[in-house]
């Protein structure tokens, strides 16, 4: 059905006489090796650990004017395949909006991608939809359904959003209102964002970028969340029982969350650039919570040697413990360091994400090259750290990947 939607989108784009259409293709093969010493390690049947996987994505964009309406479409179809599994296809309408302009105002209804954040490793101000900044491929997000009104002056803009309670949206059961004010003044870009819905209550944030001199820019942003939810491993919390018959994670409500990022970027006249960025997130697990989960997983691993305990029950519980890294995708305190060189042909980049409290890190080396019609990236990512550390206990040990992308 979804693939049919994509084909219909393709037909719509190609049949409209007036407008601008393009198709982009992306192929992202990846080879993985896993950390058999991780306390979260289980056989494949408990946590899938594909040696190879690949992603093939086609995206179509179309823009046209119908009567006085601006029609904008972004649709995608993708096929994911991995070793040991059959390929899976999916298609989506990432964006489809009808827009109307009146003076300095623009109104739109439909699905639209909203990206407001400031930052490289983490963007707290992406309150409408978050992008995982650590992903290695670059396909588009799926937008949020709603109505938007935007006002543009010479150096500022105001955006007002009413997002519907649809299953595609971040808050599928709650309509959301949100707003953003952006202003560029001299060497400073500033923005204020806010959001309210019945579930997450009020979220307000501010951020900006300042150009200090020809080489140096500073950026930062901070978000306050009146209410947020953490998925808590109840076994790790109580500390005595180490196996459960059902998934031990339960949502736990919290108030007054803070997410913040501050950083600098520096470029030299010999084609090098550096970025350093510190981020803080009080809504993810604390170091103590992580240690409790590590202790639980270590105890569960030890139980594998107990002949009286069914191995499958223990392995299933270790797999549940491993879910922690999906519920909390970053440590509370992180430091990102990046170096990049704009070479004549290749652009090498080294990026390290350091978990400050346990000194573990995820390091990615990328080589980029742009041909006439193809962009090519090849990269290797390595996770490292001592026992009971955020990246040291990652199930994934190394990933080698490539991305080929082009647009027509």
């Amino acid at each position, binding site marked *: 059905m979804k693939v049919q939607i994509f084909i219909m989108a393709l037909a719509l784009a190609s049949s409209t006489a007036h407008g601008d259409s393009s198709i982009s293709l992306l192929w992202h093969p990846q080879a993985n090796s896993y950390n058999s010493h991780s306390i979260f390690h289980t056989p494949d049947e408990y946590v899938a650990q594909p040696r190879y996987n690949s992603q093939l994505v086609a995206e179509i964009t179309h823009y046209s004017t119908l009567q006085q309406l601006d029609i904008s479409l972004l649709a995608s179809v993708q096929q994911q395949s991995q070793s040991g599994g059959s390929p899976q296809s999916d298609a989506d309408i990432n964006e489809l909006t009808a827009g109307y302009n009146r003076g300095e105002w623009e109104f739109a209804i439909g699905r639209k991608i909203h990206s407001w954040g400031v930052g490289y490793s983490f963007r707290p101000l992406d309150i409408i939809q978050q992008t995982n900044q650590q992903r290695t491929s670059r396909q588009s997000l799926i937008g949020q359904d709603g109505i938007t009104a*935007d006002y543009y002056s010479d150096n500022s803009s105001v955006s007002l959003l009413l997002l519907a309670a649809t299953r595609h949206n971040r808050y599928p059961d709650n309509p959301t209102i949100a707003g953003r004010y952006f202003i560029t003044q001299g060497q400073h870009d500033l923005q204020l964002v806010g959001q309210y819905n019945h579930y997450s209550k009020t979220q307000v944030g501010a951020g900006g970028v300042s150009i200090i001199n020809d080489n140096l820019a500073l950026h930062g942003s901070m978000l306050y969340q009146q209410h947020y939810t953490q998925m808590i491993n109840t076994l790790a919390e109580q500390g005595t029982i180490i196996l459960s018959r059902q998934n031990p994670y339960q949502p736990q409500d919290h108030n007054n969350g803070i997410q913040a990022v501050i950083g600098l970027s520096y470029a030299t006249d010999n084609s090098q650039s550096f970025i350093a960025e510190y981020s803080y997130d009080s809504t993810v697990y604390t170091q103590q919570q992580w240690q409790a989960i590590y202790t639980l997983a270590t105890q569960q691993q030890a139980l594998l040697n107990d002949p009286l305990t069914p191995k499958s029950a223990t392995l299933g519980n270790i797999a549940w413990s491993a879910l922690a890294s999906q519920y909390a995708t970053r440590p509370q305190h992180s430091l990102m360091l990046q170096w990049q060189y704009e070479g004549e042909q290749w652009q090498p980049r080294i990026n390290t994400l350091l978990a400050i409290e346990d000194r573990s890190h995820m390091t990615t080396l990328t080589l980029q090259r742009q041909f006439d019609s193809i962009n090519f990236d090849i990269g290797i990512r390595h996770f490292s750290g001592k026992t009971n550390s955020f990246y040291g206990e990652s199930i994934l040990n190394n990933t080698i990947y490539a991305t080929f992308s082009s647009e027509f």
Partner: protein
Amino acid sequence: MYKSIATLILILPITVFAASAEQMLKKADSYRQNADEVKVATEIKLYKNNQLQKQRLYDVFIKPNRQSLVISRSPSEKGQKVLMLDDRFWLLLPKTKRPIRITPMQKLLGEASSGDVATMRWNEDYDAEVMSDNGGESGTIELLLTAKRRGVSYKKIHLSLDSNSHKPLRAELYLLSGKLAKIATFEFGTGNTASQVTKMTLQDKIKKQQRTEIRYLSITPYQLANKYYNPAYLAKNPRLAL
């Protein structure tokens, strides 16, 4: 009183000479951009050791007060834009949906810097003074251009002009560090385009095997609405029907 008159007598020729340098620079600029608001279709070819490495197409929209919007038309960069408002710069990548504020130095990264593509007039950015005037029928005039604002790509430019027509012939482009970055040479069209620069060749003096040719395919008067020069608008509307 006599002292003031003497000072005036000393300063006057210099001032007249400086004004003349500004006029020559304006005239030289007019061979590249002959209207205030234009759309320039540009083709860039990057050569390394005389082998063509890359070819790119850009549409450049230019407004007065140093406002430029560079839109990439090549497949590998399609939808990518650089917005320049005075000494402020933003990079807009189609999939990020947010404007990325960049420093003047970041703007220079890449083989053909955005500044080279988007800047068609030097008189708005540089003070000019005459370094030497060889005059005569086949002579040249050497101008020294010194940046009068922050954010420009080059701190100094040594510009050679034809002494009669003030057509630009050659320019040495120096970075903020004082390093000679590139040498530009200019080609003119024939017939209707005889008074128009149709190609600027930039010989890289840092990456010495590298040469960039910027060919101006068309330069047409074009009024682009103000909202296109707002970074928030460009980020929200990555596909512009221009």
